[in-house]
């Protein structure tokens, strides 16, 4: 259960068999668009276990090279920022033992994280959460991402490509906010783009594009990630269309492991009762009709 993985001088450990805790070494850093950063990290135990829709919980300040090469069990850490930050697993190369995150710079933690350099060590726990799964009976997956919501969908496009036909709907405010189109195409997915200002592709919200494609006969399982108002629309539209939909939800996380109850989203149980669900443990992927949007 507490087996050490063999990284020389490293402290990476496997938890149960599902997740690992330790240091990920930054192998590549790029800015696919202004304000967005993609990091590729070497951490075999995470990469090998990663499923689309899962996340990693990352302390957003690099711990420095010395920490990675020493056998120091707990490298020195700053007190501010205090908490880890959750990021979806954006991509995984299991054979090379590497995975990627893609994030938008929005505040204190992501600003710090954007400063990392190749060779830095980041404190990572993962993969965590349930991940996407596709119900049987559908041969097509419809991936929908608004803005940074595309982050978890790239690995989904790759992993589902072997078993399903994948259609991807990518939305953004302007052409600058439309990310990862190349990645989806490289994964063999058919890609549709929507921008609110009409600067690229369909003019309107990604949910408008979705409705228009449905009216043209598009059917499949919907896996979506984006801001809450978009999710609510997707829930409504997919319910009317009678299609199953799953969301990857975002919330503020504390532990990321299910212990602190800090990440709550209200859900409706089959019997109609309502309760708060731990997004980090029981999610982040949740069935669309389960989310109680009045309670968010």
């Amino acid at each position, binding site marked *: *259960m*507490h087996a050490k993985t063999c990284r020389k001088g490293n402290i990476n450990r496997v938890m149960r068999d599902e997740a690992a805790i330790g240091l990920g070494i930054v192998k590549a850093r790029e800015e696919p668009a202004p304000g967005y950063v993609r990091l590729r990290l070497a951490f075999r135990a995470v990469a090998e276990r990663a499923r689309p829709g899962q996340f990693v919980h990352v302390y957003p300040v690099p711990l420095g090279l010395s920490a990675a090469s020493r056998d120091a069990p707990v490298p020195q850490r700053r007190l501010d920022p205090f908490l880890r930050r959750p990021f979806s697993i954006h991509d995984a190369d299991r054979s090379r033992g590497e995975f990627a995150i893609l994030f938008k710079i929005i505040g204190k933690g992501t600003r710090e994280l954007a400063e990392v350099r190749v060779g830095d060590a980041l404190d990572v726990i993962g993969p965590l959460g349930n991940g996407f799964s596709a119900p049987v009976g559908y041969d097509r997956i419809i991936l929908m991402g608004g803005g940074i919501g595309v982050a978890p969908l790239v690995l989904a496009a790759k992993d589902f490509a072997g078993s399903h036909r994948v259609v991807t709907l990518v939305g953004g405010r302007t052409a600058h906010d439309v990310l990862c189109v190349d990645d989806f195409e490289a994964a063999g997915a058919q890609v549709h783009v929507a921008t609110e200002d009409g600067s690229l592709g369909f003019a309107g919200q990604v949910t408008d594009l979705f409705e228009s494609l449905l009216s043209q006969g598009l059917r499949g399982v919907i896996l979506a990630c984006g801001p809450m108002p978009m999710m609510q629309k997707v829930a409504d539209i997919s319910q009317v269309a009678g299609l199953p939909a799953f969301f990857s939800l975002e919330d503020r996380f*504390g532990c990321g*492991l299910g212990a602190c109850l*800090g990440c709550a989203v209200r859900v409706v149980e089959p019997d109609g009762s309502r309760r708060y669900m731990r997004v980090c443990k029981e999610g982040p992927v949740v069935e669309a009709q389960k989310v109680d949007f009045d309670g968010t």
Partner: protein
Amino acid sequence: MEPDTSVTICGIRMKNPVMAASGTFGYGREYGEVFDLSKMGAIVVKGTTLKPRMGNPPPRLAETPCGLLNSVGLENPGIDVFIERELPYLRGLGVPVIVNVAGETPEEYAEVSKRLDKAPGVAALEVNVSCPNVKKGGMAFGTDPEALKEVISSVRRSTSLPLITKLSPNVSDIGFLARVATNAGSDAISLINTLLGMAIDVNTMKPVLGAVFGGLSGPAVKPVALRMVWEVSSAVRVPVIGMGGITSGTDAVEFLLAGASAVAVGSATLVRPDACLEVVRGIWEFMKEKGVMTVGELVGAAKRKVDSGAGCPRGTRDF
């Protein structure tokens, strides 16, 4: 000779003086997947009430400089579910289990305590009279001396388990409230619970937390916690369990020197799942380096270095 980190508090023998603080460790299961819990001093499980509680609306967390605000609101499945589903797991860990008890009325506290009194595997009760995140009960009991006396007395009558009263820092004279609790039968005092606070998002112009107010914890509160541990350990003779912002062995040693007989680690665990073990290691290393053989030698040592000896260093009140 190697330092001995073991301590005995209210008859509970612990391998070391480091406990997991209530509410940050769930019922232990999640962390049991990460590290060997049997190495901990004790586990204090999250606040448990008579009936299940849904908790507060999200967002429930907001990071603040060197800490965080939380407004979880005592979400828990209720005492019967705890005893049936969680206690058997905890019992098997080989670590003292302390149950954090909460309620809206003295009768509710007493009833929860009575049910735990009969449940095997509970080492002690921590009476939470300091939760800032519930409308009724909670902190109200920890800030009003009469109400505090009533709650602790009724819990005392309903169980023979050791009682630890967890005090709120949101008061002006914490030493006095500690005396009220011990006079009513509390065997130990733990502190601090979180400091009431809030955060506002200037972009939305709204409070960040769904419940508007929340409790502040983490390194930001450490100086306040340390001062209160000093005051309380000077005001009462029972053991004091200190917490608030501990992230390292050195932090923990500060609390011991201020008069705590044991410590608890909360927020740090959210960042580093095995923070408790890191703190234990830090204490051990400190003891080894300074040639300290028992934890008891550290407890209150800083106070003995202050002339007045009365718990209030000369001049501190004369700002």
